């Protein structure tokens, strides 16, 4: 008999405590058959996947929904609330609930398990990390426990992928337990209510919730204590916990703790700043070569230009971020999975709190010095929504690596002999000042934001310090893959769209003058490169940019930027670098016809020679400092905006951030220019 094509499909929800290894179970079940979506109207990601199960040669599909981790059905955060509401939502049509429990710590995991059983779901209890429980000589009487609680139990070792076939079998044959742990009718809270109705009501009505919540939990724990004494035998001294405590002696030590954290941060910084540079350069070269190849193969014209300078440049701008995102998430995966992140958070909480931040904001803030994009994505580990939003908001204020080329150029104009106060290296000193300025302004902003952002979520710091364990590379790789995929598909769309708009604005224009220039330019482009007068071509390119839409815009905004000491040429550079600040250098090179955009030295020489109407040097100290400060604070990065939109699920935060940063950049540049001029 051939496998039937008839597909029965079951919807399975994975529920469990944070740290119970739920995501490794999800990964082991679904592999690459995962997709990330949204719960409507909230910032929480929805992870769904699928797996197949064959029973009597019939194929069955299980749709697996991985819900955010919860400790009980009484939620304390947005994520937990989503998990509870989704479970109870009749439209979700959940057929089976799999409770993932940590076998080494059954007691607290059973609280949620008994609640879910009382909701009358078809339930399977998965005792995860059974390998670790065995290693610690914890003995669980599975048959006895199964009989008492009335639902199937399966033991899982997700590290070695053991027990998953049995899990699928048990899901397929899952049943509703005949026992009820805690009957609200019996305690006569609201007669005629079953447990599901009561939980539904408690999600809507705070007063009702507080009337049932504590007695529910306390009663359940008394039952659980009985179950644990009867079915679980664990040695008095747990080896792993002692080892964990010893490691903690160092990682939370008042000197070594901070030294280790500093080392971890240094490593993160190295990886994102330097090691990512190589693959990023490869990607850049690959796309550049591909673009050149394409532009030679295709007939010259609008389409060619759009593809090469609009689309390919845009896509390359998206892919460029992949190495940084991958490295940062690889690191974060290791720090989270090993249990170290909780310790870092533990020793940093007091330091970060005055600024409305959280111990977990430390990693994103440090990696922000390399790039705000992966750092904003990394704020996910901050569970408090308010603290997470504040961290996202302030992150782009930290000087990132894309500001370096801009800073380098301007500092070289400011200090042509690269000496500062006689002895110091100018670049080193000014860069240090700019980075410090970034940090200080970031913290001050956070401090004020803390008072502005309203939050209904209570800010608990009651969290578990899990025992240390070896991170699982397979699970982390899958997480990295999913993060990269989400960035490329979600934020990528916005980045490519803005690239194309900017390409259009800089390569198109209106009016007779522009058309004439454009014609000359086109005819020169058609000549074989040996016959082209390169100086002539550069002049035409500069003229073409001047009369394009961007050039016109640069002149339109000149009155607005005049107070900062900028002319329309800088205006053009400001607009064209709106998508990515490092474009500033390239645009300046085009405007000043310095030819080689790779070579800062030649642009520097041109800028030093520029004079204003009065015949004084245009790039005076006041103008250079004004520009430096402007680029230190201005948003000028569409990738950051796209990622903020993706992470906050709303344009509101993007607009607020853009407005704030532009305002801050403008006012500080104005102040600096007038102080120095």
């Amino acid at each position, binding site marked *: 008999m051939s496998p039937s094509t008839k597909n029965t499909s079951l919807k399975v929800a994975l529920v469990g405590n944070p740290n119970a290894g739920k995501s490794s179970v999800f990964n082991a079940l679904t592999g690459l058959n995962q997709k990330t979506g949204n719960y409507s109207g909230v910032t929480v990601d929805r992870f769904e996947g699928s797996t197949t199960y064959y029973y009597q040669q019939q194929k069955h599909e299980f749709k697996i929904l991985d819900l955010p981790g919860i*400790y009980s059905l009484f939620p*304390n955060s947005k994520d937990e609330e989503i998990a509870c509401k989704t479970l109870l939502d009749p439209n979700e049509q959940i057929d089976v609930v799999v409770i993932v429990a940590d076998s080494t710590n059954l007691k607290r995991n059973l609280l949620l398990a008994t609640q879910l059983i009382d909701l009358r779901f078809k339930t399977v209890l998965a005792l995860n990390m059974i390998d670790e429980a065995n290693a610690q000589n914890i003995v669980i009487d599975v048959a006895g426990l199964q009989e008492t609680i009335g639902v199937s139990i399966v033991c899982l070792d997700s590290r070695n992928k053991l027990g998953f076939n049995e899990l699928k079998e048990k899901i397929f044959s899952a049943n509703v337990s005949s026992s009820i742990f805690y009957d609200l009718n019996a305690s006569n809270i609201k007669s005629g209510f079953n447990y599901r109705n009561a939980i539904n009501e408690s999600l809507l009505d705070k007063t009702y919730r507080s009337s049932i919540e*504590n007695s529910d939990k306390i009663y359940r724990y008394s039952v659980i204590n009985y179950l644990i004494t009867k079915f679980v035998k664990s040695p008095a001294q747990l080896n792993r916990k002692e080892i964990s405590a010893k490691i903690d002696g160092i990682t939370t030590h008042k000197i070594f703790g901070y030294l280790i954290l500093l080392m971890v941060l240094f490593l993160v910084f190295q990886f994102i700043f330097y090691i990512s540079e190589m693959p990023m350069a490869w990607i850049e070269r690959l796309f550049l070569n591909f673009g050149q190849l394409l532009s030679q193969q295709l007939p010259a014209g609008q389409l060619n230009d759009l593809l090469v300078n609009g689309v390919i440049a845009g896509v390359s701008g998206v892919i460029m971020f992949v190495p940084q995102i991958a490295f940062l998430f690889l690191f974060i995966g290791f720090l989270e999975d090993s249990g170290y992140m909780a310790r870092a958070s*533990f020793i940093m909480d007091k330091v970060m709190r005055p600024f409305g931040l959280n111990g977990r904001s430390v990693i994103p803030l440090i990696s922000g010095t390399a790039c705000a994009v992966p750092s904003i994505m990394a704020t996910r580990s901050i569970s408090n929504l308010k603290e997470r939003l504040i961290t996202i908001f302030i992150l782009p204020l930290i000087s990132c690596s894309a500001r370096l080329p801009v800073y380098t150029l301007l500092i070289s104009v400011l200090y042509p002999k690269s000496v500062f106060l006689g002895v110091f290296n100018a670049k080193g000193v000014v860069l240090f000042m700019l980075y410090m300025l970034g940090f200080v302004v970031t913290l001050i902003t956070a401090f004020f934001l803390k008072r502005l952002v309203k939050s209904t979520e209570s800010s608990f710091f*009651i969290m*578990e310090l899990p025992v240390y364990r070896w991170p699982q590379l397979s699970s982390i790789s899958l997480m990295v893959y999913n993060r990269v995929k989400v960035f490329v598909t979600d934020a990528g769309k916005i980045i490519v769209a803005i690239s194309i708009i900017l390409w259009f604005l800089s390569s198109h224009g209106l009016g007779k003058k522009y058309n004439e220039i454009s014609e000359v330019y086109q005819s020169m482009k058609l000549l074989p490169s040996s016959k082209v007068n390169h100086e002539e071509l550069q002049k035409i390119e500069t003229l073409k940019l001047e009369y394009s839409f961007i050039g016109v815009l640069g002149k339109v905004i000149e009155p607005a930027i005049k107070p900062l000491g900028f002319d329309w040429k800088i205006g053009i550079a400001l607009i064209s670098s709106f998508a990515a600040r490092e474009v500033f250098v390239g645009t300046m090179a085009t405007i000043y016809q310095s030819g080689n955009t790779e070579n800062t030295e030649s642009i520097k020489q041109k800028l030093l020679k520029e004079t204003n109407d009065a015949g004084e040097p245009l790039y005076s100290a006041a103008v250079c400092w004004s520009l430096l400060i402007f680029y230190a604070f201005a948003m000028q990065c569409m990738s950051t905006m796209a990622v903020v939109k993706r992470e906050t699920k709303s344009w509101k935060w993007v607009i607020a951030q853009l407005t704030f940063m532009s305002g801050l950049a403008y006012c500080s540049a104005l102040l600096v220019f007038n102080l120095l001029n």
Partner: protein
Amino acid sequence: MINLTQLQKGQKALVKSFTSDVLSSKLIEMGCLPGEILTLSKIAPLGCPLAVRVSGYELSMRREEAACVLIELVN
């Protein structure tokens, strides 16, 4: 009766009750409920937060949260 912040590192105590309703439900669900024995296992280098071992887990909480947990010393 004393509260959790008055405990010395390494000392054991019996959880008696809580002074905050919101906090009590969170603590109870994490396994820190009246009748359980806890041990103060860590104090962060800057004095806050604290960590306690209770019900087989280690929980960390801020000082003001710990102040809501009323306890009784045991030997």
